[in-house]
């Protein structure tokens, strides 16, 4: 029992520590990439090419005083960053990173089966992710309320309203993905890892996209894919939807009163969610760990040795790059434009596409929805 628990903790650290490393170097990549896009160098003083910059930042924040304003609610003020980071990390529990072969030897007979490379193989994994990403909004609201500062309060109001608005469009996009994945017939011979699971499991969603990159859901669900990606940017309060931070009007939004490590924890949570959304885009719409050369003669064999995890990470990195690219490219939206986009454009588009998709599935539209 104790060993089991220890093994779980080791597996969790195997997820969280690379994640923390990615967060640190995402901030470095952000400054470097945006720097080059603006014909600057970006950080290049700390270490070779500025590679130690994130570590220097972390050490600096560690030795900065954490100020708790006298008019704030002390308990809520301290609890808010924890409310932000716990769900941002815990959502990673159900992310499948690929498939592995597991050999079990029973009475001298070795059998090899495939299993999903996932920490908690629960059936309702997509529902769990939707729930945990929703909890993230509490950190924002509690931080803004507890600070008892006008700027923090306004920032948290804006941010919360924006997050919940785009949550709806995101949820509808996920419904589309589920509908498409529900067509997939799980074959116990080729997919032993998925037996007994339904389309709400992320592993099933990825495997249902197999058969070449034109089978990935970005193509048949193109409008939902765009809605999901843009909503993901809005959900994380990133540019061009970052009015909640609006440094020229409400200074930094909900975390204006936070300093030192308390601020760093918010920062970690924000970037962990960015990486999570990027990975979900890769899993739900871009075939996850499936090779992009599947079904293409010659290329498929040449790249057959590449592990699935590498493809997944490459796809995730592409979406992370998009987050930075958007920030460097687009001017900031006005708040009324953000709400208009969320409610009056995205929600109608997703509802219409769900109906289109239902019809396409009912008529078994090839090549995506014909049941073999």
């Amino acid at each position: 029992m104790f060993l089991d628990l220890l093994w779980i903790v080791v597996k969790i650290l195997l997820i969280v520590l690379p994640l923390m490393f990615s967060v640190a170097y995402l901030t470095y990549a952000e400054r470097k990439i945006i720097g080059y896009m603006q014909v600057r160098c970006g950080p290049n003083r700390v270490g070779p090419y500025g590679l130690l910059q994130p570590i220097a930042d972390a050490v600096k924040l560690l030795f900065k005083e954490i100020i708790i304003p006298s008019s704030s609610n002390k308990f809520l003020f301290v609890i808010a960053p924890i409310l932000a980071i716990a769900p941002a990390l815990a959502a990673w529990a159900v992310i499948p990173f690929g498939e592995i072969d597991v050999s079990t030897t029973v009475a001298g007979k070795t059998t090899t089966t495939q299993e999903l490379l996932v920490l908690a193989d629960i059936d309702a994994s997509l529902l769990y992710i939707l729930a945990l990403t929703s909890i993230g909004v509490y950190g924002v609201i509690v931080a803004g309320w507890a600070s008892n500062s006008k700027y923090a309060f306004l920032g948290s109001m804006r941010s919360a309203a924006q997050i919940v608005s785009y949550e709806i469009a995101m949820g509808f996009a996920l419904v589309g993905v589920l509908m498409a994945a529900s067509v997939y017939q799980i074959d116990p011979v080729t997919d032993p890892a998925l037996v007994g699971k339904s389309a709400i499991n992320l592993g099933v969603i990825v495997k249902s996209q197999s058969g070449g990159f034109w089978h990935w859901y970005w193509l048949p669900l193109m409008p939902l894919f765009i809605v999901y990606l843009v909503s993901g940017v809005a959900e994380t309060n990133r540019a061009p939807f970052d009015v909640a931070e609006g440094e020229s009007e409400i200074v930094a939004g909900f975390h204006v009163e936070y300093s030192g490590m308390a601020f760093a924890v918010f920062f970690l949570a924000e970037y962990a969610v960015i990486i999570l959304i990027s990975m979900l885009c890769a899993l739900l719409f871009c075939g996850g760990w499936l090779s992009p050369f599947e079904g293409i003669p010659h290329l498929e064999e040449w790249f057959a040795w590449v592990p699935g995890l590498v493809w997944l990470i490459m796809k995730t990195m592409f979406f992370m790059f998009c987050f930075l690219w958007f920030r460097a490219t687009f001017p900031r939206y006005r708040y009324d434009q953000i709400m208009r986009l969320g409610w009056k454009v995205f929600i109608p588009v997703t509802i219409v596409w769900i109906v289109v998709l239902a019809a396409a599935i009912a008529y078994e539209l090839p090549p995506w929805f014909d049941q073999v």
Partner: protein
Amino acid sequence: MLENYLPILVFIIIGIGFGIGPMMAGFILAPRKPDKEKLSRYECGFEAFEDSRGTFNIRYSLVAILFIIFDLEIAFLFPWAVVMNQLGWYGFISMSVFLGILVVGFIYEWKKGALEWE
């Protein structure tokens, strides 16, 4: 079945730990010299006129209420989407009716101006 959820519980605890750990480190390692001005809330160089927890725009509450309605719809759509393939035309038509009612409500709130921000 339930033991599949144990790693999630452990992960949530570790996630909370990743929140508490750095904050504790910050409280221990960082200097702590509070004074009245430093602890006052952020304002542009003067005392805040009033408590910040006064009135706020009603639209934020309206958005929250609309969110609850639509999020519930999504929660209803999820199980349907998973099994829609087995339900056939019966499931398709009953969900069309459900979505139709949702769309009528959506058009109503749109025409009422609940989605306008100025």
